[in-house]
Structures are given as structure tokens and as C-alpha cells.
């Protein structure tokens, strides 16, 4: 079937089988491999993307469901000239990235939270990333990085987006 949607701000048109998930479509057809497959059953959050402003597991979304809608993947989160944005830089600064596999999902979970709650509590940050598993168990640093970014943006800091 034909899929027309907005991906990271650009109009995309592509063919995909109707029984394909958004995750497989992003990785195998569009070759955007930043979105990771972990459990493939909606438990781990590695495949998180933002669909019409809401964080979802792309392994549970059928490709047809995104027709006419807006999707943001990790490839759409960056600073000017492709450099890290402030949240990504904070992940680096706070040592939040270990093996890295969960990080695209974590960044999107962080962005989805900060878009609706600019000044979250630590508890709210933990709730926001509760569906994102980090098997290196570096949660403390991840929460620190999101909290620091929230404070930075709350004080009027530029989020460094292009």
C-alpha cells in the first residue's frame, strides 16, 4: 500500500506491505536505523517514536496507521549542523550513554516529556521513561540528563535545534 506521511518535518511517500510495522518500515524500507528493535512486543521502548506528538512503540504500530500523520524519529532530533541538541549533549555530559541501544528511545521519551511538561519533577521523569528499558541500568544518569535539560530550557535556554 502507498504511505504518505510527514517524517521529521519532510513529506514522505513510499510503498509498503500492509502487514508491516512502522518499525520495520523505518528500518528496512526507509533505511533509518536509528530506531531500534529490542523486544518487538511493546515492553522495552527501544523503538519509541513520536506520532502526532505522542510517544508510541513503533513495533506495535502498523505502517498504514501513519498515513497522513506526523512522525518524529531519532533522526529528526539534532542541533544545528547535525550536532547533538541540548538533551543529547546532556546525555553525553552526564554519562547517560553506555551501550547506547536504548538511547534513541530514551531521547524521544525525554523530548516527548519536555514538550508537555517543561519543568518535570524527578518522579515525573522516571514515570516518563518507565517504558524504556536500559539493560546497562544507567537510569540515574539518564534522569539527571533529562532534569538538567529541563532546567536549561526552563531558564530560556535554546534547545539547540536546527
Amino acid at each position, binding site marked *: 500500500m502507498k504511505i504518505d506521511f510527514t517524517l521529521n518535518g519532510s513529506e514522505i511517500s513510499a510503498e509498503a506491505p500492509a502487514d508491516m510495522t512502522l518499525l520495520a518500515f523505518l528500518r528496512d524500507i526507509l533505511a533509518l536505523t536509528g530506531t531500534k528493535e529490542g523486544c518487538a512486543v*511493546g515492553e522495552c*521502548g527501544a523503538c519509541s517514536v513520536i506520532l502526532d506528538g505522542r*510517544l508510541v*512503540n513503533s513495533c506495535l504500530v502498523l505502517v*498504514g496507521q501513519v498515513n497522513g500523520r506526523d512522525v518524529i524519529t531519532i533522526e529528526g532530533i539534532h542541533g544545528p549542523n547535525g550536532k547533538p541538541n541540548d538533551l543529547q549533549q546532556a546525555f553525553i555530559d552526564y554519562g547517560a550513554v553506555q551501550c547506547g541501544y536504548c538511547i534513541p528511545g530514551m531521547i524521544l521519551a525525554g523530548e516527548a516529556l519536555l514538550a508537555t511538561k517543561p519543568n518535570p519533577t524527578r518522579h515525573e521523569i522516571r514515570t*516518563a521513561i518507565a*517504558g524504556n528499558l536500559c539493560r546497562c541500568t544507567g537510569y540515574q544518569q539518564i534522569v539527571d540528563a533529562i532534569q538538567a535539560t529541563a532546567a536549561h530550557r526552563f531558564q530560556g535556554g535554546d534547545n539547540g535545534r536546527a
Partner: protein
Amino acid sequence: MKERFDYLRASSIHDAVKLLNEPGVKSRPLSGGTDLVLLMRESPLICNRVIDISLIPELHRIYQQDNQIVIGASATFSEVIEAQLIQQTAPVLVQACAQVGAVQIRNMGTLGGNVANAAACADSLPALVCLNAKATVVTPVSTQKIAVSDLVLGPNRTLIPQGGLITDLRYTIPPAGSQSVFIKLGRRNAMAISRLTVAALGRQDDSGTIREVRLVPGSATPQIRRFSTAEECLIGRLPEEALFRQAAELVIEEMAQLAGRRWSSEFKEPVLTTMILRALNKIFDKDDKDIEMAGKPK
């Protein structure tokens, strides 16, 4: 490779029901997809076409009609949690939906889907039964309102006919002064499948006498229902610890009658007792607060 199933998006309830009942093709409604997409991987033969109902605007409406709150079946758990009308009238449902999965699942999964899938551990079911909620079930020839407690027959079994669609869930706003609560026990805080849940609602009069109580344990019995024997023992009485313990005992007896004593009973009975005590403490104002030892939800 041949596609296992086709995808079609319905534009209205009428359109969805028509597509679901087209002869010669096995169709299933797709709402949040958090259950169906996985089920189709395990059992590819359950359908050869999905009808996406998740973008039908009327299925997302949450509104008040007379003294009832109507929730479109494709309202996501997140939409239910954020709806002021539900926050004000049914905290038990907001709390139950907030316990579902994690944010990703709550952004996708829908109230109608939770009822139609009827998992034994579905968090919204005890809350809906506690609210005496009804589901509107539409087929090409009928529109019926069925109590959720009757609609769900047991784990993954409902009265929804083939080709039928839940279009909304509705409850009568509980009388002023009602307090409600949802308590969940899982193996961890987030992303946990419920081991046991309790949805409870109660109301006292000015003298403190209990005038109304609804107690619905979840994940405890095959059919989700109000435990009326325990409820009746509380009505017309003043809340106190001995009474709450008596009610909790009746709940345990009723669970054993409905579900039989099972390998898990040794664990579930004392745990459910504590959860019932916590729920009753939460919804009723007592003079003595001795039940603190049973602990309170945070």
C-alpha cells in the same frame, strides 16, 4: 511474500461496521493495536483484514450527556487520564488507566480495546464495573447498551458478536460525596501485569453512616463483578476496623466461591484482604485510624 492481512481505515462508525461485516473477508477492528498487532503475529489466521477505527473522531469524544459521562471507545488511556470530566467524576477510572503499561502503551491502548480484548488482568475493567458502566455495542442491525459486567464473560471472552463494535463506554456520575480508588498490585511499579487489583467506591451520609459501597476485585475471578455480599455488610454501618475486616473476609469467601481455591490462593487471600482494607480506608472517613498498620497506598 504474500501479505498476511490488509489494512483499511474507517472514516465513521457506520463505515467501520459496514467494513467489519463485508462478506468473504475476515475483518477485525484495530484501535490501539497494542493487543491485536501481537495477537495477529501469534495467530495469523484470526483475520485477513484490519479495519482501523483509531482515527474516527466521534470515537474519541468524551462528553457529558444528562447525568452520564460518555467515553468514545477509541479514547486512549492517556486521553481518559487527561479528561477533566472523568477526573472530576470517576477518579477510580483515571487511577486505573494511569496504571496501564507505560506512557507508550497508554498513548496507544484504548478503553474500548481493553474491554473488547477482556484480558483477565485488564486494569480498566474493575474500574468500569465499579462505575456500573455500560458499553454501546453496534452491529449492522442493532445498537445495544450492555453492562460491562455482563459483556465480559471471562478471560478474552465477551458477548460482542462477530462484526460487532464497541462504540462507547458510559457511566452515571456517582452521587456527590462519593469517594473512589483503584489499587493495583504488580511485580514492580511500571509496566507490570496486574496480579490483583481493587476498584472501590463509597459514600457516607452526614452522620458518617455508609450509604453506598461498590467493591470490585480485578484479576481475582474469571468474571469481573461487584462483590455484593461484602458490600451489603457495610451498608448502613459506621466505618470501623472490625467492620472492614468482616467485609474483607466476605470478599475472600466470595473469591473462593467464584474462582475456586487455586495454587495462588494462599498468596492472593491475605494480599487481597490487605488491599480491601486499604481501599475501604481510602474511601471512608473513620473516627479511629487504627488500620494504619494495614498500610495505605502512597
